[in-house]
């Protein structure tokens, strides 16, 4: 089983169609919508986590792309610069996912990419600006 996070950009003609549910029924993928923003007659954006067999993930993504949906994997695009981090903890105040934690032995702030739900609150909370989000932003 593999788990990946992707950012989807839906062209406006697709936003009324049931699509994500087919990832489950047709491709046996467990999907978890982390963030979504759909405005009427505009493009829709979604951050989606999908879990399943690698082959099914590949085919599921092809299925999404067949609607003209842009699919960008995002797991590697939150940059936490541990070297520049001073471990103050300002980011922990806004991290609801548990991705950012304070190591109780070393007192160092750690970032666990797998737990991150890409809310980006930490990016703005970091006083030293050492956390960067380089993917598309869904909402501010």
């Amino acid at each position, binding site marked *: 089983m593999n788990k990946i996070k992707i950012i989807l950009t839906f062209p406006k003609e697709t936003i009324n169609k049931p699509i994500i549910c087919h990832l489950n029924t047709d491709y046996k993928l467990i999907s978890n919508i982390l963030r979504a923003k759909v405005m009427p007659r505009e493009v829709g954006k979604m951050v989606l986590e999908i879990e399943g067999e690698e082959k099914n993930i590949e085919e599921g993504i092809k299925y999404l792309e067949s609607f003209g949906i842009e699919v960008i994997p995002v797991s590697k695009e939150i940059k936490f610069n541990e070297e520049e981090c*001073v*471990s*103050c*903890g300002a980011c*922990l105040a*806004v991290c609801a996912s548990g991705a950012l934690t*304070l190591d109780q032995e070393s*007192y160092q702030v750690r970032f666990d990419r797998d737990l991150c739900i890409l809310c980006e609150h930490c990016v*703005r909370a970091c006083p030293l600006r050492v956390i960067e989000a380089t993917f598309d932003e869904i909402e501010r």
Partner: protein
Amino acid sequence: MAKTFAEINDKIKKGEAVVVTAQEIIDLVEKDGVEKVAKDVDVVTTGTFGPMCSSGAILNFGHSDPPVKMQEVWLNDVPAYAGLAAVDVYIGATELSKTRGMDYGGGHVIEDLLSGKKICLRAISCGTDCYPRKEITTHITLDSINQAILFNPRNAYQNYCVATNSSNRVLHTYMGILLPHFGNATYSTSGQLSPLINDPLYRTVGIGTRIFLGGGVGYVAFEGTQHNPGAERLDNGVPISPAGTLALIGDLKKMSRNYLRGAVFEKYGVSLFVGVGIPIPILDEEMVKYTSIKNENIYTTIYDYSVEKRSKPTLGRVNYEQLRSGEIKINGKNVPTASMSSYKKALDIAEVLKQWIQEGKFLLQEPIEKLSTTQIFKPLEIIGNTE
């Protein structure tokens, strides 16, 4: 048997002084007892590394040819106060860039100077007979300018409050982003490592005390602004809300970016993380008791930052053991906590200072004057000129 500053300094010079951090002394006292530790240990080192807004640097640029009496000055587009002679300015940590707004400010100028970066200096003047030049644009570095002195009017707060938010909107504050409906609570003290918490009644820390400041050597210049020694204290002498403060001074040219960092607080502004470490001499058993204080015995007060009043309502009292556990209870609700100051860096500073003293290159300075214990923190009232 009591020790004096002079006796401790003799041991430091001989490389015989026993130095421990304010964290290490806790276990030592539990193991050996107060009496033995008072004999064995000479100095306890403390540390703190947090955003301290009341900070800045006095810069003297040297004179250009022909010379200029700088009246308005910008460093990388951040205004510096120039109402001091011809080429003296004060660059304050919270001053904002005229072109980049809250993304860059005085704190960053200080950090960039320490990084060895070139800073654009721009100044204008009316021109005088003795200072004929009317404008100047040049580039400076920390090495190229005549002098750079870090002078922070208020640092090293003796305890600080816990900030939380009862309202239904997100608050952007100097205590970080406060989430609605008690979504979080933030604090900003290194607790058991914090300098003035280890000398709660200012027995050994006073005017003239030699300290670790920003990676270099500095001094306590005076009591800090808003110094409030009369704050309520527990039996151990430690205040339960912000109390004493220190004005600190030192040679910026000998400091390091590792311990002075520009900071941005979203929708609040710019500040400067300042690293401060103060050595506490173990003169007698009383100083052992003070310096062996543990997080669980240091209490602070929770304030609701959503109330737009000078006196914010309080929501109870917690200790630093609870705060550092990551969760406290406010009105029966579990609220996650986060620190604004770095315990990791505070510990690092206490260790560095310990090493300096062990190596004999840092001597203790007995205060030439005590800090005020009677100063009152006055509010500002709004009064018309006919009242």
